[in-house]
Each structure stands twice: as C-alpha cells, then as structure tokens.
C-alpha cells in the first residue's frame, strides 16, 4: 500500500508510481467529503424540477404507521393466546 496521502512534500514524489488518494476504503464511507463545487442554486438541490419550492411534493415520511392488520401473523398468534387464556378462566 502506498502511504502517499500522508507523505506531504515528498521530495521524490514524481518517482512514486501513483498517488493513491483513498487508502482507507473501509472508513471512507463515513467521511463527509468536500463538495466539488462551491455554490449552486436551490433548483439544483431539488429532486425533480416539478417538485420544487416546498421541499418536494413527494411523500417522504410516514406519520401513520400503526398496524391494524388483524391477519398479520403476530396479531393472529397474540389473539389466539389471549382467547385461550380467557377460555381457561
């Protein structure tokens, strides 16, 4: 592995075959990289041109997620169990 990113001002830098920029593949994911451009208009931040202005009309968050599906496995088993206990009382 090259230690090139650490080797500031290496006098013989030209002799190094390659300046390897990313030796830490594992952690790279966690670093907030510098943006390649300094500034951009808000339009370029929007997902699609149509959904501009109010942060996009796309539905990004679920506020109601309670599960009322009685046929779902967990609910079904729970109901059986509660019934069973009730019957035995």
């Amino acid at each position: 592995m090259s230690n090139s990113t650490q080797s500031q001002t290496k006098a013989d830098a030209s002799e190094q075959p390659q300046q390897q920029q990313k030796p830490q593949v594992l952690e790279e994911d966690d670093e907030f990289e510098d943006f390649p451009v300094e500034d951009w208009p808000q339009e370029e931040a929007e997902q699609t041109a149509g959904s501009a202005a109010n942060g996009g009309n796309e539905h990004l968050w679920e506020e109601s997620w309670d599960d009322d599906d009685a046929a779902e496995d967990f609910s079904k088993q729970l109901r059986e169990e509660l019934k069973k206990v009730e019957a035995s009382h």
Partner: protein
Amino acid sequence: MAGQAPILDEFLGGLAVQIQNRDGAKLQDFLQIEPPLSDAYQRMIQELRERYPAGPQSDSGLLQRCEALVPRTKGGSSWTAFPTFMKLYFTFLRDVNTDNLLDTYNQLKGLLNQCVLALGDSQMGVIVLPTVLYLSKVLAKLAMGLDRRPELIAHILRMEGAMDNDESIEKVTLVEQSANVVREAFIKCLTDRTGTPGPQGKPEGKRVGIYLMANLCLKLLFQCGKLRNAEQMFASISAQSPPLAHFPASQRVTYLYYLGRYLFSNNLFYPALIALQAAYDQCHRQAISQRHLILAYLIPCNIIMGRFPSRKLLQRPEASGLTDKFEQLCRLIVRGDYIAFREYLSPSSPAAEWFARKGILLTLRNRCEIMVWRSFCRKVFIHGGFHGDLQAPAQRGPPPYLYLEKLTIATRWLQSQHGQTQRSNGVNNATSKFHFYGSQIIPESTDPDFGGLDGSETPTAQQLLEKYGDYLAPDGFFDGGGHWQDNMPGQLIDGNPGADYDAFELNPYAEATEDGPDADKQSLLMDEVESILASLLTQGLMRGYLTHRNPRFAIPGSRVRGALPTGFPNIWETIFAREREDDSVPGWVRPPPPGALGAGGGRVVNLSGARPVGVQ
C-alpha cells in the same frame, strides 16, 4: 542582489506582487506544499538547500529576505507574523522529511500556527485566509490519515513514549491537536471587526472564512470523538456570525450536517431534525455520498420522533445501504415485539455494529423501545380489551379499558415464543421462566456476568473455585502487616465461599409478600407493566388513566373519535405539536425576520442592562 538564486528571487518577486494586490487566492497558489510538487518547486528546494542550508545564520538570512515582502509603514513593518511564516514555509520545504511523518506533522502544524498568527492582522490578515484554509486542509488530511493508520508512526511514538510515560496527562491525539489549531483560525475569522460585524452583518473580510474553518474543525472533532469541544464554537457562532444563508451552499450544507449530528448526539432531536432536513433539502441532488450521510442521521431523527421513512425516500439512490437497516427497525416498532427489537439492537446482532459505527445505536435503543411497547399495548388492547358499549347511551357504561393482566399474559407469551426459537436454535435459555433477579420483562441478563444468578441451586465450592479461583485462591497475598505471604495452590484465603448467606438478602428487588412466591412473581411483572404504561401516559404516547387496585388502563372520552385513536394518539403528531412551539436551532444563525430590521418600528430593544440617567 547579484548571485542570489534566480528561482527564489523570482518566487519572492511574485509573492510581493500578490501581497501588493492583496490577492489571497493567488498567494495561496504560490505557497504549495503538497506533493507532487512541480519542477520549479523542486529546483527552488534545491536552491534553498544550497544557498540557505539549515542553520541559524541562513535562517535569519531567509527571514531578512521575507521581511522585504511586507509593505513598510512609518514605524517599521507592521505585519511581522507574515515574514516569520514565509521563513517557516521555506525551511519547511527545505527540511521536511516524510520518512518521519510525526515530524512532518509537527512542522506542518507549526507552519499553520504561524500562518494563523499572520491571519490575525486586522489590515493584512485577510490576504492569508486562503492559505490558512489550504494548510488546515493538508494538516487535517495528514492527521486523519495517521489516525486511521497508526502503524505509520507507531515506531516513532514508541521511541518517544520511552521518555514520556506520564499516564496522568491526558493524551491529545493528532486529530484533536489539529482541531485546536483550526479553531484558532476560526476564531480569527469570526471576530473580524471590519464592515458590519455580528448577526446583522454580511460575510466580508475574514468572516467569509467562518464556516470554512468551522466545518473543518467540526470534521476533526467528530473524527476524534471530542464533540463536547464543539459546544463553544456553536455558541460563538450563534452570538457573532452573520446569517448562514449568506454563505455558499457547500458551506451551508456541510455546516448543517455537522450541527444536526451534534444536536442529535445531545438528544435535541427536533432541532437536529430541522438542521438535517435543511441540509438534505439544500444539498446538491447529484452529491449522493453527502446526501447518503445526511440521511443516515435524518432518518433516525425522524424515527425517534415517530415518523418513518417512506418507500419513496428509501428507494432514492442515496438511501442505498440504509434501507434494510431502518426498514427492519421500523417493522419491529410497528409489530410491538420488544424482545425482537432488543435482539436487533443487541451487541450480538450484525446490524448493531453498523448502528454503532454511525454512533446511533444507543440512542435508537434507548429512545425507540417505548414506541415498541406502545405498539404492543395497542395490539393487546385491540385483541383483548373492552372497546366500550357502542349501543349504550352517552354517559352510560364504563369507558373502554384493558385489564393489565392481559398485558402480563401477552408478555409471558412473547417470552415463551422467543424462548422456543432460542431453544430450537440450541440456546439453552428458559426465557419464559420467572427470574429471581432483575427485570421480569427482559428475558436475559443485560450483562453476561449476571447470567448465572437465576440458577436455583447455590453453586458448589468446586464450581466457584473453577470460576473465581484467581481471586479466591491466588498464589499469595499481603497479610495484615503488609508482608507478602505465599499461598498453597488451591487454598482458599478467606475460607469456604459456600458459606451460608441466608441471613443476607441478595435480591435487590425482593419484597416480602404474604401471598407467597407465586403472587410475588405475578406482582413483580405487573409492577413493571404498570410503570411502562405510566411512562407512556406521561409522555403523551398513550392517553387515559391507570387504576392500580384491579389494574386497568381506561380510555375515557373516546365516544366521538373511538377508543383506539383516543387511547393511542399518533406519535409524530403528539411530539411535533409539543416541539413545534420552539423551532429555533441553537448554532444556526438565521436572518432576522423581514421588517425586524426596519427603522425602529416594532423592533424589540432589550433594556435589561440599561441604567437610569445620572446613576453612576
């Protein structure tokens, strides 16, 4: 000056022009230090080594030449920090030895330090701002690189460690040292008094560098885990910075990302949500990697406040890698299986490592379990509660309620379900059994050290010796007089550990009841269920009241809306209604509302510090 090195001459001449023009960007362009350096720099380094070899004499010669760069005022040069910085720059180029990266680091830090001093000049300082930023970035990159690959300097540290072994001094890592230097530069930018300073001002002079330096400093502080050191930075920004909106998008987004993470780690979820949502909304749509990182914190922020990411959001390219982790978490919260939830975020779970690396594991574990319990109670109410007599006339008949015993039954059932899967997986853990120690709702000990406590028999001396032999029967001990005594192998120093402890109560939860052990174990679980429900009610995540004698959860006033929506209100709406009253985000300077800057009218003037005229 005949005989002077031509390249160095040329270089100094070029520098002088840039300083005269006050062109900071070009000046920075001259002051390269990062390899690969072009041919011209190589030749200049060669010249420096020949003309000014290391030594005090040539160093002062160099300094003299650098002093000529700075415009002279009547009282001599006013910007003395700059020539010293330039001299350091030349000696850095001349002397740097990248075989010793620790030395390189220290030299670079010294160079940056001097440049920050030059930045402090009220007239000329702003010229070196781009250079300070450049050097800071190089230093940060080196420090973070060494932090990730400590083996590159381990041998050097070992050599120095032999001389400096004082454990009582807190070790300051290279990354933290760098953050400290960068913070100095940040302060110089923030406190620049040119133009209109403060929150009403525009980014001019050195203030254009406020967020560039702050972002770099925050990156370093996050890397070295010293988030607390950022607090003062955010406070000074709140007090002195122009509005963030006046700065370029890249700086805004980066800053809001770090600010959001900082607020998140301080459990300020709503301000964090605002900051991270703004970072996400303003981030360039093609900056996938940055959007990905913002989402990695924006999503848990929302989950904790009761709002889950939609399919649409999770299908976006920047959500790749996040989808399965968070989807599963949300599924478990909805299902109400608190044991599966705990398992998902337990140290042995593969997902936990990822959550931990992001620094959100403990927060999610601590903050989301209450939502799981709400779902669980809700389901038990749906399938086992009394939903009210819809035929009865208003004001008649009892309100909908749930016997808490149903919850304890469901809890035991859930435990037995998990016990079965564990047993079938070869884990011998009778989870649905009553526990003598600790919580009744948690099927296994939180700490493996306490794992054996539920064993019904007292361990034999032999078992104890096997497990704790190094403590019970060590090779020797100090007697009362402080003299070392050898011990026979296997000899118990303090006598037989199997002694009778009946006289002592070892169970911190023990409470003698007259109804015998069976009633005891029921009431212990009931106590816990009651306390969980009380917590849900206090937080507004469930609505109604509890009765303690004949334990029930009752939902009054549900005739219009129905028992479920009344007793189990929407979490997001509940929390949002509470939090929205204050949508200020500490650390985020926003422009004063329109009109507030008008000519006095309607402007609030704080007179708390004012004194009556004439009072001394």
